[in-house]
């Protein structure tokens, strides 16, 4: 045994540079070059980065592929939307309805009173709590049931997909309570602050960016901690970890809940910036697309996940605007390419091809530490 201790610093020099570049892109470059409409679009893309970062921890590190991140994104988003909708549905604003003071879609569906479970969303603190707590609790129920029975891999993926199906059918079917397939629309103010103006959208973009960095730091902390190393051990050799005396299920539940909480925050920020929330944004198809954000960025790279979300969404908007027919071909090819040719995504391409060349150009930095071994091998 070597006596030399392996150190796991919170941030290596590489990480510091990576986060600094990312911060510069999000807080300086994008606001400087984009008009406020495009900036708002990129703000929307960044909300998906919350989900992608959660997936890096769950899937890349933990080996748990969830096809149901849309649920958690949606739950967070709906919690926020319910608060905003209640604020927009004052008796004065809704005086033409047969029951003033309740959201318009409830009135259209002949509801005469607010359902009890909408009541907590009159309060902003409770709403902010719910944005994180509801997805986490939901993830806990799913995770507890599945992981303690050692369900993993593709079975877990299929069951999360079924849960997405259930939730979207439920939301669409219960129009009177949820706004149905149109979702919750016509959101106006947050605590009296109009969120539809350009200034508000720019402010929200920066709030979103700051929150994303908080989430990134939490994710980074988890990855660097003993928990993060255990996760990778669990992914590769669950039985050995179990025989070493660790409760594998508990770690899996924790990481799944953490990913769900991240997704919930992303969903709430999505509602705030885009101004509505609907079941078409969180169904089976969007939930799988969230996985591709993570895969394109590099399933093991936290920073990569953010770029993945940005690049894929930007490509989606650009292509589906100008060549709608080509977009699905492109997205399909992307799924196949990222699996067959680039299992480590953009981060892998960067680490293998771009970074070494950059380092050659930069003579002083020849002693850069290589990426940790775990980041080089793809997950199963």
């Amino acid at each position, binding site marked *: 045994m070597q006596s030399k201790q392996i150190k796991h610093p919170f941030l290596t020099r590489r990480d510091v540079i990576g986060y600094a570049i990312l911060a510069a892109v999000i807080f300086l470059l994008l606001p400087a070059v984009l008009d406020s409409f495009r900036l708002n679009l990129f703000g929307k893309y960044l909300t998906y980065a919350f989900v992608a970062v959660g997936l890096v921890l769950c*899937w890349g590190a933990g080996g748990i*592929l969830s096809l149901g991140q849309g649920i958690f994104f949606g739950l967070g988003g709906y919690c926020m939307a319910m608060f905003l909708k209640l604020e927009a549905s004052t008796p004065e604003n809704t005086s033409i309805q047969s029951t003033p003071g309740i959201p318009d879609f409830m009135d259209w569906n002949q509801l005469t009173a607010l359902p009890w479970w909408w009541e907590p969303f009159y309060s902003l603190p409770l709403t902010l709590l719910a944005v994180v707590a509801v997805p986490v609790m939901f993830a806990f129920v799913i995770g507890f*049931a*599945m992981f303690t*029975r*050692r*369900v993993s*891999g*593709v*079975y877990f*993926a*299929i*069951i999360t*997909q*079924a*849960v997405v*199906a*259930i939730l979207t*059918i*439920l939301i*669409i*079917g219960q129009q009177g309570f949820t706004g149905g397939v149109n979702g919750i629309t016509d959101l106006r103010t947050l605590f009296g602050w109009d969120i539809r103006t350009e200034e508000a959208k720019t402010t929200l973009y920066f709030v979103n960016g700051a929150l994303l960095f908080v989430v990134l730091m939490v994710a980074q902390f988890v990855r660097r901690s003993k928990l993060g190393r255990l996760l990778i051990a669990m992914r590769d050799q669950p039985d050995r970890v179990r025989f070493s005396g660790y409760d594998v299920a508990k770690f899996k539940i924790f990481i799944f809940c953490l990913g769900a909480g991240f997704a919930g925050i992303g969903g709430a920020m999505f509602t705030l910036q885009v101004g509505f929330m609907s079941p078409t944004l969180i169904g*089976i*198809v969007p939930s*799988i697309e969230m*996985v*591709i954000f993570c*895969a394109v960025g590099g399933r093991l790279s936290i920073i990569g996940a953010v770029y993945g979300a940005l690049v894929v969404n930007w490509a989606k908007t650009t292509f589906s605007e100008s060549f709608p*027919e080509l977009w*699905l*071909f492109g*997205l*399909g*090819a*992307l*799924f*196949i390419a*990222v*699996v*067959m040719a680039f*299992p480590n995504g953009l981060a892998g391409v960067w680490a293998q091809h771009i970074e070494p060349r950059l380092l050659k150009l930069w003579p002083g930095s020849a002693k850069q530490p290589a990426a940790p071994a775990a980041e080089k091998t*793809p*997950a*199963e």
Partner: protein
Amino acid sequence: MFSDYSMSELTAIFAMQGFSGLILFSVFVLMALGLAIIFGQMGVINMAHGEFMILGAYVTYLLSNLFADYMPALFGMYFFVAMFFAFFASGALGMLVEWALIRHLYKRPLDTLLATWGLSLILQQTYRTVFGAREVGVSIPDWMMGSLPITDLIEVPINGIFVMVLALSISIGVYVMMYRSGWGKQVRAINNNRQMADAVGINTAWTDRMTFAIGCGVAGVAGSAFTMIGSTGPTAGQLYIVDTFLVVVFGGAGSLLGTIASAFSISQAQSIMEFFLSGSMAKVLTLLTVVGILMLRPQGLFTLKLRK
């Protein structure tokens, strides 16, 4: 709830609802059989399974037009020819996909899932480009139209009976293939222990390819049968995929009997509940029950005893 109906009406309602449940059951069985081979035996997640079904449906649509234009005398027979072609079209595509994609990913099941999802997107867009975004329907031959009156109140549609007969015969076909043929024995041997199967001289790579192709071919036949009871659109395959996977997982992967039993219970539960609740709530409750049971019993209803 029941007091508004007379006794004979209630019997009729249950019979009709039960029968529509049986049609749904046949649909589920047809959808799930191909997947039971691919997922159950090979452990491959094929998210493009629905698109293979739709390919079969489009082949049937093309052939029905062909027969109507050039051989109207034989129109009553076209469906059987179409089924044959659907099987081979989907099977050939399956073989190609196995060769190009799947065989590289046998050790990475989650990646197979993503790659085949990508494939499904590409196929969907191809269908949309070739056949248009609108749903297409085939003209059903005369002998399949109408319904059989059983009593004054109970009537059963003939195309429903046809789909049921088809589901039954394909199930028997798959059963014979899997459990009574040398090929089936090889497939099950590989499923049990790949290395050992390889060592005793089974050509595992070729068997894998054939298994995948046959699974896809069965999906094509299922799609062909669906044209008899509904129309076909480019994205129709995606609607089936969750249900289909749930049926196979609920039944217990690797068990053909389990797949059929789970298709039966899910379809009956859904169609009976549909009468009392709205369609969406019936679906939600059915799926919830299935997921709930799977949480308690993740291995599904029927399991093979395997030493892992």
